[in-house]
């Protein structure tokens, strides 16, 4: 394996690690928000919806335009 190949492999692993952490953060944040809603017996607020939908739309745009 060439040095370039090793560097690419390491970069790939690092990229996967960062994306993995981001997935975990999304899951934890959503779960924490849901737990808070269920505990207080309320629906998402407008601000919570706005933030969640903005993040979804942003991810959608980045996926489609990368």
């Amino acid at each position, binding site marked *: 394996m060439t040095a370039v190949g090793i560097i690419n492999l390491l970069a790939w692993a690092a990229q*996967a*690690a*960062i994306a*993995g952490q981001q*997935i975990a953060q999304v*899951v934890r944040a*959503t779960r924490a928000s849901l737990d808070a*809603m269920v505990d207080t017996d309320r629906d998402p607020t407008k601000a919570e*919806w706005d933030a969640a*939908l903005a993040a979804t739309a942003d991810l959608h745009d980045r996926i489609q335009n990368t």
Partner: protein
Amino acid sequence: MALDPKVSATKAHAAAISTLIVAVLAYFGVGEMPGTEELATALQTTAGLVAYGASAAVTAGIAWVATYFARNKPIQSSLVAGSLALAIMLGLAACGQYATGGSQEKALSAEQLAFKVNGDLQAMQVGALAIVENAAVPAEAKAAVRAAEAVAYDAVTAYVEAARSGSGDLATIYTTAVASLTRLFDVLTANGWMDPDMNLFGVGAGRVQPPPNDIVVFVPKGVLS
């Protein structure tokens, strides 16, 4: 051998109090037993009030009996009575928990469920973004990911709008959204780009464990086998 009544009574009282303390600590300490919040909820129902009231009365009665008999046989009587009190208390607590629903999973409202589904989509989008940004992934695979993500985004967006407005055939729209998420999940896991636990590329450093409870799942139960 005759026992000194004063000494025995002191020991008996100490044993009875210890029994009560241990029973209460065990009652709240056992993992699945109701805590303060659940107890407060349970006490708002007749069944819960009866169960917990009976639990407290029976435990207090057994502690009193332990005190009475312990004047002659402090250790044996207290141990037997303490074990019995604990067993009855835990049994009644279980009854109270059953009667009030206890720790059963709460049903999510329409908006809460929509919020969860949107969160599931976001988690998959993060994985999808990592795949399309990865130079090592073939163009065809990226195209498949983009196509599946676009369908899932539209379906989930439609579901969220319907859930928030309370209009439309919510069950059908939900089914469509879940199907699109399942399809996206299948595409993400195809060719080993991501495994079923959402571990990217099988690279150890990037492994992500699924959440320990079932409030948030990537895809609703029963959809994926």
